[in-house]
């Protein structure tokens, strides 16, 4: 069987394409516009972070791309069903770490005989070899997110959606997981759309940072991050760009105070 992970198909035009996507929900004062005219492409193998303050509709946007919800207007195209990682690990506590991954493989249609080996390979990839039989509650927060990452990778999607996956972790663990994610991204060639409200995290990880304004969420600005990987969150160029982005972000937030 194939040992390589799903590389993003370089011949594909995009890993995800959002075309004039808007989303409104029924609110107390009539229809409430949450996302307004978002047009965004994620190229195959690209790492994009979506940055925004609370209320910018980041999570709504990810739900739309994941197919858990439908846009009010506009269209979304993805190459197959994307994998999604949440802020909470969302591992199933009635299964062991390894069986969680094997469930993803099973639902993808991997033959029973191959599941164990494939799950162990994915655990090795997130540096948790030997944790197959561990129960979820026996793992630390960082280990749980790594198992969740392995489970998401087990879906063999060419696009990995991440909804603030490291926000609940302590800073030391988060740093380590940034390194791991960068390594796994470059090894597998998967495309990543990563949502965060942490500016430095966005700059540390991404090739492209997309800033969303709040209420309604609109694309305010984009930055290409040309710094070589692996970066460190303390690197001076990372900090410099973070300052620039933070200033724009604060300007966006300040607008809301005025009316």
């Amino acid at each position: 069987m194939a040992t390589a992970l799903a590389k993003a198909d370089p011949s594909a035009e995009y890993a995800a394409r959002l075309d004039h996507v808007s989303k409104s929900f029924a609110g107390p004062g009539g229809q409430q516009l949450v996302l307004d005219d978002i047009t965004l492409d994620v190229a195959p193998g690209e790492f994009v972070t979506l940055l925004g303050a609370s209320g910018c509709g980041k999570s709504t946007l990810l739900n739309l791309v994941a197919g858990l919800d439908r846009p009010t207007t506009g269209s979304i195209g993805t190459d197959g069903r994307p994998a999604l990682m949440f802020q909470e690990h969302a591992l199933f506590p009635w299964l062991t770490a390894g069986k969680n991954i094997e469930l993803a493989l099973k639902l993808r249609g991997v033959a029973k005989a191959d599941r164990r080996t494939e799950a162990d390979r994915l655990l090795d990839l997130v540096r948790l070899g030997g944790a197959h039989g561990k129960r979820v509650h026996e793992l630390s927060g960082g280990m749980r997110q790594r198992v969740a990452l392995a489970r998401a990778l087990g879906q063999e999607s060419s696009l990995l959606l991440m909804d603030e996956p490291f926000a609940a972790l302590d800073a030391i663990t988060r740093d380590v997981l940034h390194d791991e994610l960068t390594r796994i991204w470059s090894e597998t060639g998967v495309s990543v759309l990563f949502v965060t409200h942490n500016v430095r995290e966005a700059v540390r990880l991404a090739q492209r940072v997309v800033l969303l304004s709040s209420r309604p969420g609109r694309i305010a600005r984009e930055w290409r991050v040309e710094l070589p990987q692996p970066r460190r969150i303390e690197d001076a160029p990372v900090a410099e760009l973070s300052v620039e982005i933070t200033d724009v972000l604060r300007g966006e937030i300040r607008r809301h105070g005025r009316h």
Partner: protein
Amino acid sequence: MAGTDTTTAPGTGSVGAGLDALESTPAGRRPFTRTLREKILPPLTAVVVVLVAWQALITFHVVDDPSKLPSPGDVWARFREDWFQGKLLGYIWTSVSRGLLGFALALLIGTPLGLLVARVRFVRAAIGPILSGLQSLPSVAWVPPAVIWLGLDNSMMYAVILLGAVPSIANGLVSGVDQVPPLFLRAGRTLGATGLQGVRHVLLPAALPGYVAGMKQGWAFSWRSLMAAEIIASFPDLGVGLGQLLENGRNAQDMAMVFEAILLILFVGIAIDLLIFSPLERSVLRGRGLLVKN
């Protein structure tokens, strides 16, 4: 092919390994001597205290009428006699076999019923409140109609058990399903578990703790209903179960027999719970890290 060679600075992986070791909690089972000291000794002490107090009432002539309160020795002699005549296990088996078979039937009916109520909005609105209400109806109330409808035979016993246990089991499953975190359902859907696969791989296992709690309660209700049915509807052709034993003791004014029957009903109820339902519940909860160890 990239393989697994790393592109990060050396050391981050080992930092991760160090964090893992620092943050994970080692899981172990308690040693047997501790179980003995903390779990077995206290209830044993309680039983001994009750026996001593009971014997003291007799010895110090506080209660001097054996037709009101037999001595522990008298009751023990009853047990011995029935044991050596080979009747004791017969009494127990008559009731336990009825109870377990009735419970199994209740499980077969309560499970799909609970799933329907939990997942189909119309069914829930239609019979959900009735199902919860039935739980507070003492199942002994079903004995008279069951006798009239089905006559004095085993089917009437099973009917009473079902009416007592099915609502508990169904309600347990409903509350189990209601308490499934929506995150699990979303995670399941992104993994591709939709429709029946979602029910099988995500919804049912996630609802298991509530379901098992409902089963446990369902057994308690089954056993109580059955005893009520046996006491009220005692009839020679039905064989002597524990309820009939109690009723026979009353008719014979034999307090030792009455005590024997009450103790047996209590022991069997506890034993089934300790042997079947508690271990089941513990293993479900322990696997999910929901069991608080102290």
